[in-house]
């Protein structure tokens, strides 16, 4: 299935490869936590937080949301950051300084405190029994796969990883993943590390052996990986990154057109119904539009063409 086809009908006729990701086991908490480690890694900064109540609740694929800018901040909205690892009371995140909020986060020092809500969102569902898992991370998206890789290996699944980025300094968590996974392939757009090209170069080679695919990274990458997996008949789960005002499910800003279990497409919240979605359930090509077959589009005056 390509994303531009009509998944609503297809879902009903042929069915999808994935089930919607189930809710997390435990509810989030809000805490003031201390930064206990800060490590610049190439283009990113890794922050380590003493956050036992979040760590004990977190599952791979979930994220946290930080208040940014301090007491005098003009930035009202929290910033969502994927959890990289959560163990022994410690949560690790990798932050890229994109705009003012994430830049502020990267400037935090050991001993500073942060107001954080988490863990948020739905975790990656487990793989089919015995399946070989292919994990694909783009840029800092690879960080979000570290905890997943650990869990999969602990459960006895073979794990292949593909980490890609624009350039070597935008790769992330490669050392950690090498220590965990069976194989790690690296691609960069400019060839400054690993093979030159997009992650799909490596993904296409590894897909035939995979029983499930997990991906985290920019939307175009998720789309390419999900499409490739679906074309091979392999279930895929993608962790999307959509602009979020609340992160907890109350504002409806973060929606994507997602095909539900009944085959109908709804605008679903990526914070609470995602960020992990079945790769064949995200209508990538329709993101940013209002397709007529989304539930309730008729009430917006959009009619079947």
């Amino acid at each position: 299935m390509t994303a531009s086809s009509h998944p609503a009908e297809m879902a009903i006729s042929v069915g999808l490869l994935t089930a919607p990701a189930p809710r997390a086991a435990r509810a989030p908490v809000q805490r003031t936590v201390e930064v206990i480690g800060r490590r610049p890694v190439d283009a990113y900064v890794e922050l380590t937080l003493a956050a036992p109540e979040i760590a004990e609740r977190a599952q791979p694929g979930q994220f946290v949301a930080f208040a940014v800018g301090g007491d005098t901040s003009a930035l009202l909205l929290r910033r969502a950051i994927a959890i990289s690892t959560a163990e022994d009371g410690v949560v690790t995140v990798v932050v890229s300084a994109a705009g003012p909020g994430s830049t502020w986060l990267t400037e935090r020092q050991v001993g500073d405190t942060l107001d954080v809500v988490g863990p948020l969102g739905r975790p990656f569902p487990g793989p089919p029994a015995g399946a070989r898992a292919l994990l694909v991370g783009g840029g800092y998206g690879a960080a979000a796969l570290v905890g997943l890789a650990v869990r999969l290996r602990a459960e006895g699944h073979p794990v292949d990883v593909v980490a890609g980025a624009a350039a070597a300094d935008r790769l992330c968590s490669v050392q950690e993943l090498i220590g965990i996974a069976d194989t790690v392939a690296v691609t960069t757009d400019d060839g400054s590390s690993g093979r030159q090209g997009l992650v799909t170069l490596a993904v296409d080679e590894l897909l035939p052996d995979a029983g499930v695919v997990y991906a985290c990274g920019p939307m175009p990458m998720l789309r390419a990986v999900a499409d490739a997996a679906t074309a091979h008949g392999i279930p895929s789960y993608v962790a999307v990154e959509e602009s979020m005002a609340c992160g907890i499910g109350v504002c409806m800003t973060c929606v994507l057109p997602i095909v539900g279990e009944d085959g109908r497409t709804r605008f679903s919240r990526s914070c609470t119904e995602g960020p992990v979605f079945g790769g064949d359930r995200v209508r990538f090509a329709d993101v940013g539009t209002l397709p007529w077959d989304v539930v309730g589009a008729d009430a917006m005056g959009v009619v079947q063409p």
Partner: protein
Amino acid sequence: MTATETRGHDGHSGRSDTAVDMRTTLGSAEIPSPVLTASGCSAFGRELEPFVDLTAIGAVVTKSVQLRPRSGRSTPRMAETPSGMLNSIGLQGTGIDGLLTEELPWLAERGVRSFVSIAGTRVEDFAELAERLRGVPGVLGLEVNISCPNVESRGEVFACDPVAASDVVSAVRAAADPAHPVYAKLSPDVTDIVSVARAVSDAGADGLSMINTLLGLVIDPDTMRPVLGGVTGGLSGPAIRPVALRCVWQVHQALPDVPILGMGGIRTGLDALQFVLAGASAVSVGTAVFNDPSAVARVHDELAAALGERGFTSVAEAVGYAHR
């Protein structure tokens, strides 16, 4: 601080031990706290459960509901702005059926009060919604979101025309459960908010909710096009607080007997206090919830403490105090 988590934001923590009587009313409906959620900023309350004791807050003001399910607008639906944000959700929701079968029973089972926001594009829609909400368990009353385009008047927003606004309110008042107070929610985007307030209160509104968002726009410097899928959007958050307070002040000054549910940029107890002093007998906390999911409970506690420190023994005493 040691390297452990502190529990600075726990909405479940005991309310501050103050003697201030925090009970207030929404029209005829008594509520134990003057602090409510704001429509569209806490969905139907469920997601706040981990952070707030929903039975202790004044009420959950629910996301505006329409008759039919609505997809809402295409994304992007938000843009952060200095001390605020723009949204163009487009009233996404499952419609009145979903509300009646899913959301309201969930709230009622837990003893959570709901104040139901209704919206429509024709006067009859509003009346039908009010009708369907008669006698529904747990429903305290109705907030009428008239900041919607009126399809029968080339899309002019009801709230921007005293006559259209009154038509909606009188139809709702006639159709609604007599036990349900009807609050009209006003838009600040008018030349004379007092005249709209007077018109809807003459038309039977039991109270006024003020304010809805201000119409705004942001252009993305990269794409060089408006950020929002809906082009314009509603501005909310602390940025608009002075405008909201001015509206509450003006209307309370002109119509001191009309109850006001105040909102717009409330983030702390002292912000809420300003609204109460200006004339609001209850307040809604909207966008601040996105920053702090426990904001509604925290604002209650901070407001109670602030009232106590100032020698008030009840919130009622402080309502409109700044005019005296």
